[in-house]
């Protein structure tokens, strides 16, 4: 196995593109190193991208954020405005693993590892985030939702990797939230995750809403019916019940050692309505 440290985006792309065998990108390494030790992956090349400045920086321009793919969840939480502008996105990233893991684990890795249970992904999709993909053919912007294609697989081409994750300028009177179900409080993988993003009109009624579920399908899924159920409401009990029902109907989970399909369906509704309420309260300035 060859290990290379890239110091530019282009350099990383050309190293990855040049490898004939199996190449892996190392950002935080909290998935890759575990997979290496367990013998789950046997790469011929590992390219460390966390020494490239662009992958390690959070920058803000006119309200829009560019977050380097190797920025750790803990760094997002410590950022001056990111956590207040995007509390749901930030809390998703800050839930990964444990305090120690969050010092390393990145949204880039969480996204490209393509676990259906990835904690940082649902809120990013709900936020309408994109990512900048760098590859041998140059750079392209892709919706975060289009990166994972199934458990452990993503849409990146040969030699491509995610350099940054980009959050649009936050809409006025909007906010977001992310909740997940794990039996413990940390060091666990979501049985269900649910993100909500709501935007209020001047009268305090929801005028746009997105609900995205994790761990209930091969990839995170948006539930448009759940979002629609919130529009025109103030997240009252009836609206929240409709959100829950829509999510239960949309969830297509599997049964495994972490939870039954039936459990996941029910809890996806519970978490979605709770996340929606939190997002609504935050957007209303009541949280």
């Amino acid at each position, binding site marked *: 196995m060859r290990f290379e440290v890239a110091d530019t985006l282009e350099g990383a792309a050309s190293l990855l593109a040049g490898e004939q065998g199996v190449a892996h990108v190392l950002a935080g390494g909290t998935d890759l190193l575990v997979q290496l030790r367990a013998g789950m992956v046997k790469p011929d090349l590992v390219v460390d991208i966390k020494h490239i400045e662009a992958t390690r920086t959070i920058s803000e321009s006119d309200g829009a954020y560019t977050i380097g793919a190797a920025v750790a969840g803990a760094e997002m939480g410590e950022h001056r405005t990111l956590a207040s502008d995007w509390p749901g996105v930030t809390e998703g990233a800050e839930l990964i693993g444990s305090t120690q893991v969050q010092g390393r684990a990145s949204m880039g890795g969480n996204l490209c590892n393509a676990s259906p249970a990835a904690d940082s992904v649902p809120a990013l999709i709900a936020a309408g985030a994109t990512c900048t993909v760098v590859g041998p053919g140059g750079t392209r912007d892709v919706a975060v939702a289009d990166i994972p294609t199934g458990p452990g697989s993503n849409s990146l081409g040969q030699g491509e990797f995610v350099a940054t994750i980009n959050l649009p300028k936050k809409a006025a009177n909007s906010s977001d939230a992310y909740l997940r179900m794990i039996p413990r*409080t940390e060091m666990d993988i979501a049985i269900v995750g649910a993100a909500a993003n709501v935007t209020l009109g001047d009268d305090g009624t929801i005028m746009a809403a997105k609900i995205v579920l994790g761990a209930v399908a091969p990839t995170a899924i948006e539930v448009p019916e759940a979002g629609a159920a919130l529009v025109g409401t103030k997240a009252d009990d009836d609206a929240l019940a409709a959100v829950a029902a829509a999510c239960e109907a949309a969830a297509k989970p599997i049964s495994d*050692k972490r939870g039954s399909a039936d459990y996941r369906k*029910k809890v996806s509704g519970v*978490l979605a309505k709770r996340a929606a309420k939190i997002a609504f309260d935050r957007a209303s300035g009541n949280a």
Partner: protein
Amino acid sequence: MTYDNENLKVVGTRPVRPDGADKVTGRANFGADFSMPQQLIGKVLRSPHPHARIVSIDTSKAEALPGVKAVMVGEDMIAMAHEMSQSGESAIDVHDLSLNVLARGKVLYDGHAVAAVAATSAVIADDALDLIDVTYDVLPHVSDVDEAMKPDAPVLHEDMFTAGMDEKPATASNIASRMEMALGDVEEGFKKADIVIERSYKTKAVHQGYIEPHAVVANFAEDGTATVWCSSQGHFAIRDLCAKLLGMDSSAIRVTPAEIGGGFGGKTTVYLEPLAIALSKKAGRPVKMTMTRAEVFRATGPTPATSLDVKIGVTNDGQIVAAEADFRFNAGAFKGSPVGAACMSAFTPYTLENVKVVGYDVVTNACKSGAYRAPGAPNGAFAVESALDELAHMLNMDPLDFRHQNGAEAGTKAVYGATFREIGCKDVLVAAKNHPHYKSNLGPNQGRGVASGFWFNIGGQSNAAVNVHEDGTVTVVEGNPDIGGTRAAMAMMAAEVLGIPFEKVQVVVADTASIGHTDVTGGSRVTFATGMAVTQAAEDVVRQLKERAAATMELDPEEVVWQDGVAHPTKGEAKPLSLADIAGDAARTGGIIVGRSSINAKGAGPSFATHICDVEVDPETGRIEILRYTAVQDVGKAIHPSYVEGQMQGGAVQGIGWALNEEYVYNEDGILENPGFLDYRMPVASDLPMIDTVLVEVANPSHPFGVRGVGEAPLVPPLAAVVNAIQDATGIRMTELPVSPVKMLEALEANQKQAAE
């Protein structure tokens, strides 16, 4: 002699533990930290099947791989006859142990060792494992204890005929033994009962979860001796078991104990050690072996899964008139589950006239169960304390009052034959009832549960030497690996007896050649038994100090008293002499002073515990949060109260894990699905509130300071305390552990449905 509680200067205080700095700075050497020049890396090939006949093993390709220095299979081990060897809290059949170390003929569980290699690197060793061709004839398997007892179940051992029956059974079965113990006449007792309940419960196999995987370095020398470095709960047991399995003399094996990163009973037997010695002998070089976490889960000894029936009868005024239990323990691949201890302990917190307990030790295609902190007792107590809670509700009695009314006390005869002397069972119940926790208010979806538990504690063989140095400092040499802060406790007892400051005493855990045989660190015995040996060795020093002082003072030894580290003449004008004075002059007065003690300590006082647990159940997700937890226990005398509290907190936490999330998940194919900490869910720190502790001190009259073992009793009550709290919060009686969110939500919904109908 015994020491008066009022005059203690060191015992009962909270000095910093001597091993603490090394452990928190990473300087301490644990099992995997030791290495030797020229060492090889050993690895084990493990069965992918739960039950299969080994048709053939071809190791030729592995042996031909450059860098591979030794390969061994089951046939390289000595064939052993069935023979019980004492190890720790339970006896081990060396025939079974040998087959567990390396399979012959059949593999009996997913992860069973089938071959071992030693190579110049870990990568080559792994490659060598891939090159070993094993042909298996896969057999039907059985993982569940109740299934394994059925007549048509696949039989693991063709030579296993149930022991303990009036007549030897005609056919082999998976039931290794049946045991029964009774007091009075339960049939008659139940006739007097106003209320009788019969309930069934199940628990899953759970692992001790020690943070340090098993690791060993062995060096077999040309003269036929072997030196071994490993972490264990008892290096003398490791030495003796290796000697037995390998046909060596005990004196030919010297085991040096590493620091131990947790054991909880799981490190009282051998897995890698005999293989490392045998591979080293074959290769002519030292061999280091370290288990991965997956190997620890798949192939070491968790506590058994169990299936438990309980029947209890009470009168309307709350008197238990009869109690009966039937316990079925899943021993895993080889016999030897702690079902006996479960039978002996489950009803023991109570004074019962009529009680009968039956236990079955059953083998299945799962890894062989091992000792885990109060082995067997948490399972039995889970069943009994759950049923008692239900009865208290039916009687409309406070559950602590109900227990107190029936509680054991001095003079109570237990079902296993013991009659108690001074015990703290009722004192603990009173302390629990008076605790502010028990009187505090609860909110919606919250509930409170209590449960009690008992553990025997043991004594056993211990050795200690106390070396007095010329400058007046002291080294205590003993033979028990320090798991729970015992270096501190030993130093404190020695300092107390000698009348010198704690800081003047160092404690060394010596290797098997440097101190006499000492039984394992287990059974909650070390502070009691080894503490007794250290106390006596220190008293031996005091006797010699007085003799030397008396000679210098030209008095008889009886005319000298020892007080606060100084020999005082009771008559004449001689100057008092301190320990340092006498030690400095020792060469002149007869040579260096060494105190010794070698004992088989008797009179370990039993410990009783009662825990109070508050939970909140999320009615929509089934998630259970522990809100508040208080552990109350009779600890005899707390030598170092912080470490006693630590034992109680640790036991409570392990029990909470056992109750809520921990379980071995064997799938339909008999394969362990969760051999790692991600999906084997032990509690993490953020899951728990601070565990409150109350130390009730009812001195054990058999110990000079009144010590009772404290390490195991705190794991006995939590399972039922949690489940009883869940019942209080939801009205639902959960009878199968663990109560995962999935299981809890199913029960909540079934309950709702029932209510609606």
